């Protein structure tokens, strides 16, 4: 009866499962329903609303100078992006850490996989379901706050505001992908939790330290810096050319890989917010021969896209091959 003859009866087959969009949708919907019933979803919506309103209130109260320049939305984007940069990873990791490991620990993953869903469907459905929780609460918070923000701010730039929302959603998607992928590598929520903590440490502490370490290595001459000339005003009022040294392009690139930097760099592309205050923002004088494409701000979209795709791709490959 069997049409495919096995090459060797002792060989363990590790089949690659297929993806069915209907199944992905069903799993995502279940996961979203499950989450919406928890306090998490409404708590998040309220949190984003309060965050926006509080920052706006602060700007309109203290920021008279900013208001005169008509740059209040820019200031809002600047402050809110600094806060969301730190908060969204936390939320995404907390939302996602139990996505797969939790269901394996309680055994309820057998409910999902007793139904005609493939393991890939489950992973993708979980990614969509969990990121939908974050995205929808962001949208609810931003939409409700828009009314208050527009009323309080002298000038309300809808493009900047929406750009911030869109980038926050994409940024959240990237961290949810990391969280769900890590959650699928273990059946222990304790290990999954530790992995989330590791990610947190990596991008909040280690990544910044890397730049400092390279700076030290450059000063010691272990790695070669790049020389550039800059006009510096001298004491007598004239300007004079000074040769200085900066980190090489590839070290700068490492800095832009951090999802948080990519998030803020991408905002500067979409909005009119000043690029000098957000993300990595390297001075133009550093690049005598033009900025390499991978250090341009638009490249941050590619970096964020890779943060969404790569963790998921690894998880999709690996999760098909494990015993539950």
């Amino acid at each position: 009866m069997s049409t495919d003859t096995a090459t060797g009866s002792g060989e363990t087959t590790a089949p690659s499962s297929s993806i069915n969009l209907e199944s992905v949708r069903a799993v995502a919907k279940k996961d979203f329903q499950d989450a919406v019933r928890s306090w998490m979803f409404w708590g998040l919506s309220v949190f984003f609303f309060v965050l926006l309103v509080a920052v706006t209130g602060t700007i309109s109260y203290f920021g008279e100078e900013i208001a005169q320049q008509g740059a209040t939305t820019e200031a809002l984007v600047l402050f809110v992006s600094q806060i969301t940069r730190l908060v969204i990873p936390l939320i995404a990791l907390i939302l996602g850490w139990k996505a797969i490991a939790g269901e394996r620990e309680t055994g309820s993953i057998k409910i999902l996989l007793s139904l005609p869903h493939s393991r890939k469907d489950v992973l993708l459905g979980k990614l969509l379901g969990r990121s939908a929780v974050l995205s929808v609460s962001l949208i609810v918070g931003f939409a409700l706050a828009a009314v208050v923000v527009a009323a309080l701010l002298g000038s309300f730039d809808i493009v900047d505001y929406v750009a911030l929302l869109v980038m926050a959603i994409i940024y959240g998607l990237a961290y949810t992908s990391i969280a769900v992928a890590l959650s699928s590598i273990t059946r222990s929520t304790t290990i999954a939790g530790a992995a989330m903590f590791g990610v947190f440490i990596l991008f909040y502490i280690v990544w910044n330290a890397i730049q400092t370490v390279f700076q030290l290595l450059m000063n010691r001459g272990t790695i070669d810096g790049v020389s550039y000339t800059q006009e510096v005003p001298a004491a007598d009022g004239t300007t004079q050319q000074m040769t200085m040294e900066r980190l090489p392009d590839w070290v700068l690139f490492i800095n832009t890989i951090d999802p948080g930097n990519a998030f803020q760099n991408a905002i500067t592309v979409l909005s009119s917010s000043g690029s000098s205050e957000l993300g990595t923002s390297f001075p133009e004088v550093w690049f005598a021969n033009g900025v390499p494409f991978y250090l341009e701000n638009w490249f941050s979209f590619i970096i964020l896209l890779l943060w969404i795709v790569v963790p998921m791709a690894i998880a999709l490959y690996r999760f098909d091959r494990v015993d539950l």
Partner: protein
Amino acid sequence: MPAISVDTLTKSYGQTLALSDLSFEVEEGEVFGFLGPNGAGKSTTINVLLDFIRPTAGHVDVLELDAQTHSREIRSRTGVLPEGVETYDRLTARQHLEFAIDSKGADDDPEKLLERVGLHDAIDKKAGGYSKGMSQRLMLAMALVGEPELLILDEPSTGLDPNGAREMREIVREESARGATVFFSSHIMEQVEAVCDRVGILRDGEMVAIDTVAGLRDSVGGGTSLRVTVDRIDDDALQAVRSLPDVGSATVEGQTPPTLIVQVDGSKTAVLSTLEDHGIEVQDFATREASLEDVFQSYTTDTGTGVEAR
């Protein structure tokens, strides 16, 4: 045409052998009881059928499809009640069923399904507040979604009171009458004998017996279980009893004083006189009809080894 065909299936976890060269078939339309003590490998077998785990060696076909490469199609035509599983706390029974119906592309009515399993009252309550028995009923209802050709029920009576277990068996009969094949595992013989066409007994990852319920009863002497309390017992005496033509099996239960359980199909006095011939004093004895539980016991507990230990 077999609904399930397991061929020389082996599953090992490192040094531990969970299943060893297991082979059996479940015919289409039959109710098959998969019996064995806890840890015998029942859930491991079911996990392979559903592609939750991959075999170390061997081959499994379900509904004439390869269990590994065609798992999605198999599961779309199968209803499963998994074992040791928690339902989703924050979802109601209705939402659980809607998810199953949605997933299978079926058009069942959640209310009717829940009525069938006796959970209609709790339809809009969150499963987080359910008792173990209610969760079990909910998962049975989920297994029934879409009139599956095959039902795989892993320890379905877990957490059910006797009444619930009876209702569960009633549903198994109804599903069987509809034409479904039912494969269900249990560690309690009583659960399967009333409803199963055939029973397979698993022990330490190997199938030690597979027969109809009547056939199993016959295989262990078919007759009486003799319980003899003696002052002492030794190997020679036990062997002598076992070698009697009418004796199906003889086991020692307890040590102070030792009690012999002998399955005998004929003369009981022969057993007693053999013991006395070996200088063993019979203190008490009783007889009773062999139950299927005895059959199960005789297949799944060690026979004889208890004596050598003395």
